[in-house]
């Protein structure tokens, strides 16, 4: 069975490589990703290796190894949740074959030899094991601890992937899973900073020994004990780890058995239950613009993972941006309040990135209907404004009440609205230029709406480029005084209005001629 799965995996990988060769855009994305990753590896890799290779020389390596082990296994959980599990060898496709779930689990496990993550983990285990001054004298136990770490990571990844896939067939579970992923993603980031500070200080932090009792940390405990010659502790931690691996394997097999029979939860559901935008959608003008706006508002709430996806993208990228802004500016400066209000326009990016590609399959409806594509573009902006502008106003009022200062409210509102308008103008061009079809599914797997990180990064850049003149105008007032408002405000409004109108006309005209071809192209037809 293992041989069959391995040959199947090889065939899938070959086909994927052939598909990349056929699609230059995918190839370009891979090249850019490899270049970016390569840069970081060359820049930070040697320092990272040097730091890790002295882990074993800590006076008491137990706590630090426990934290490292926990972080690595946890990273497998988070990355699996974020980037999805196995898609190519979906167990549902094996439903009709006379194969036991345990045999499928063994077969799937063997295909992990092609997992780059597993080889990276193995490399890390080797570096950690070799970091002890007398590693050679404790080699068998150290090696066994390394193997335990790799196996625990592998089984955890498979368990999470299969479990998330099973849960994700129910809409609410899937949405919750997405938000949970965001929260969990913060854990390895926090641990990274905690562990780094301990390496800089040369000793484990007080109280960090508690981590040794957490099961995911046991391979690290075993390795640290083995490296110090504490054989009894090492064997106890290893026994615990292998028990965990066995339990994980048992649970994974159970999930596989269940996944093969479970159906998607596409049962009848109420259309408007809890839909906050349905009221707005019903009151929009009875025109093409109003119809498109109503559609966008309804789909935002009803499409699987759309809203949690938008919240996540906003929090991740918006959060990064806010941290940078807070670091650059004086938090007590009222200019920052204006700046913050403008930054709220980023919410639109998280929600609207790739809005054409998202509906590439369904947009034929609009193509065969007589009318102007510009009306569709205005409709999407109208829906977006119904969400974004109240957020801008509420945020501004909250800041003003908190600071007890109202003089800048009106100008800040104008700057905020200008930033929103400029964002719409820029996104319009981005969404046509970088449209990428999303797979259609009634109830897809864990993160069906996940955009590629590269696409999100490009969207962030588009937002920065589009809104920079508005931020610059606001910064002018903050730096040189309110008398500059008379120049800065009209400039911001003229710029954002101009960008919005020009992009509407040019993109609308282009879509009138090429929308059908665009949809065919992005769907690979």
């Amino acid at each position, binding site marked *: 069975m293992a041989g069959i799965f391995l040959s199947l995996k090889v065939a899938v990988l070959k086909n994927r490589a052939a598909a990349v060769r056929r699609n230059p855009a995918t190839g370009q994305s891979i090249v850019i990703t490899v270049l970016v990753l390569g840069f970081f590896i060359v820049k930070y890799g040697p320092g990272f290796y040097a730091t890790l290779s002295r882990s074993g020389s800590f006076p008491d390596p137990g706590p630090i190894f426990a934290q490292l082990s926990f972080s690595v296994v946890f990273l497998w959980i988070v990355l699996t949740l974020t980037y999805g599990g196995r898609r190519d060898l979906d167990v549902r496709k094996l439903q009709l074959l006379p194969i036991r779930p345990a045999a499928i689990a063994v077969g799937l496990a063997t295909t992990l030899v092609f997992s780059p993550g597993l080889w990276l983990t193995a490399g890390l285990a080797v570096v950690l094991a070799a970091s002890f001054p007398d590693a050679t004298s404790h080699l068998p136990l150290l090696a066994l601890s390394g193997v335990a770490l790799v196996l625990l990571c592998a089984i955890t990844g498979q368990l999470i992937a299969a479990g998330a896939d099973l849960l994700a067939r129910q809409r609410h579970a899937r949405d919750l899973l997405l938000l949970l992923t965001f929260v969990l993603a913060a854990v390895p980031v926090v641990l990274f900073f905690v562990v780094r500070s301990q390496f800089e200080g040369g000793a484990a932090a007080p109280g960090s020994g508690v981590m040794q009792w957490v099961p995911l940390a046991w391979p690290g405990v075993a390795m640290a004990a083995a490296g110090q010659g504490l054989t009894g502790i090492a064997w106890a931690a290893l026994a615990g780890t292998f028990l965990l691996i066995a339990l994980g394997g048992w649970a994974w097999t159970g999930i596989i058995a269940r996944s093969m029979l479970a159906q998607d939860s*596409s*049962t*009848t*559901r109420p*259309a408007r239950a809890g839909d906050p935008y349905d009221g707005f959608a019903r009151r929009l003008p*009875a*025109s*093409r613009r*109003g*119809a*498109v706006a*109503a*559609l966008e508002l*309804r*789909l935002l709430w*009803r*499409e699987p993972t759309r809203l949690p996806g938008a919240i996540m993208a906003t929090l991740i990228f918006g959060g990064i941006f806010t941290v940078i802004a807070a670091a650059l500016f004086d938090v007590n400066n009222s200019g920052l309040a204006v700046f913050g209000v403008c930054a709220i326009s980023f919410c639109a990016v998280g929600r609207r990135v790739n809005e054409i590609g998202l*509906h590439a*399959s*369904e947009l*034929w*409806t*609009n*193509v*065969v*209907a*007589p*009318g*102007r594509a510009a009306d*569709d573009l205005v409709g999407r902006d109208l829906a977006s404004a119904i969400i974004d502008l109240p957020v801008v106003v509420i945020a501004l009022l909250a800041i003003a009440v908190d600071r007890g200062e109202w003089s800048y409210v009106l100008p800040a509102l104008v700057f905020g609205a200008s930033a929103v308008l400029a964002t719409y103008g820029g996104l319009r061009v981005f969404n046509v230029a970088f449209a990428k079809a999303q797979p*259609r599914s*009634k109830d897809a797997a864990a993160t069906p709406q996940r955009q590629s990180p590269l696409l999100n990064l490009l969207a962030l850049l588009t937002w920065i480029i589009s809104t920079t003149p508005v931020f610059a105008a606001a910064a002018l007032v903050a730096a040189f005084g309110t008398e500059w408002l008379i120049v800065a405000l009209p400039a911001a409004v003229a710029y954002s209005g101009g960008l919005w109108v020009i992009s509407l006309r040019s993109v609308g005209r282009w879509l*009138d001629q090429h929308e*059908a*071809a665009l*949809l*065919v192209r992005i769907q690979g*037809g």
Partner: protein
Amino acid sequence: MSSSPAAVVIEGLTKQFGDKVAVDAISMIFPQGAFVGVVGRNGAGKTTTMKMCTALLPPSAGTVSVMGVDVWREPVAAKKKFGALPETMALFDRLTGAELLLYNGLIRGMDRTLVVDRSRELTRVLGLDDAVDRLVVDYSHGMTKKIALAAALLHGPSVLFLDEPFEAIDPVSTRAIEQVLNRHVTDGGTIVFSSHVLDVVERLCDHVVVIERGQIKQAGAIDDVRRGGRLEDAFLALIGQEAADTKGLTWLGSS
């Protein structure tokens, strides 16, 4: 094909994907009031032709006009003349049936009251009146076909292009769709539909077009094509398909 005024005129229509010619310079004229069945095996070029006729796929060469309006030169005017039901039938399925029809009517510039009235009539005739408040994602395949057909008919088009409207649907839904389509033709409308179900083509159509490898093998009145026999036999003879040789399959049913 007929002396009636032309509803659809296709001239030299060609589509090339790289080196592959999917549709090879086909020319046809469908008269007003015709019920035309386009048949061919998988990959013959039926869907590609339909897409080019409905402004969904730009042709590499040639022209298509509907009721005298060129689809690719005057797309807005042409789109008012026809309704379309593509094969993939991807709909905004997180809308209810009623919302989907309203959306389709409004993006065509129709009055809201008119859309609501026509939607009510169409869903009643198609047997969807109990389902209009449910999300389309929860519809069965047949119901989805029917709501998509209702969306295509909503603006009262002169010409309907339907790609595989009878594929994988039950006899009850088939009958309901057939009745609506017959009514459309009786009222002077024209229907061009592609199908693998030759029995349905034989029962409904007065004209048939056989496409093979992007070229028209034969086109004309259905009686002329089938020459007194069954359409399926005539079709298989036209595309040169012989019966499969099953002599080697003696092991079937042996385990």
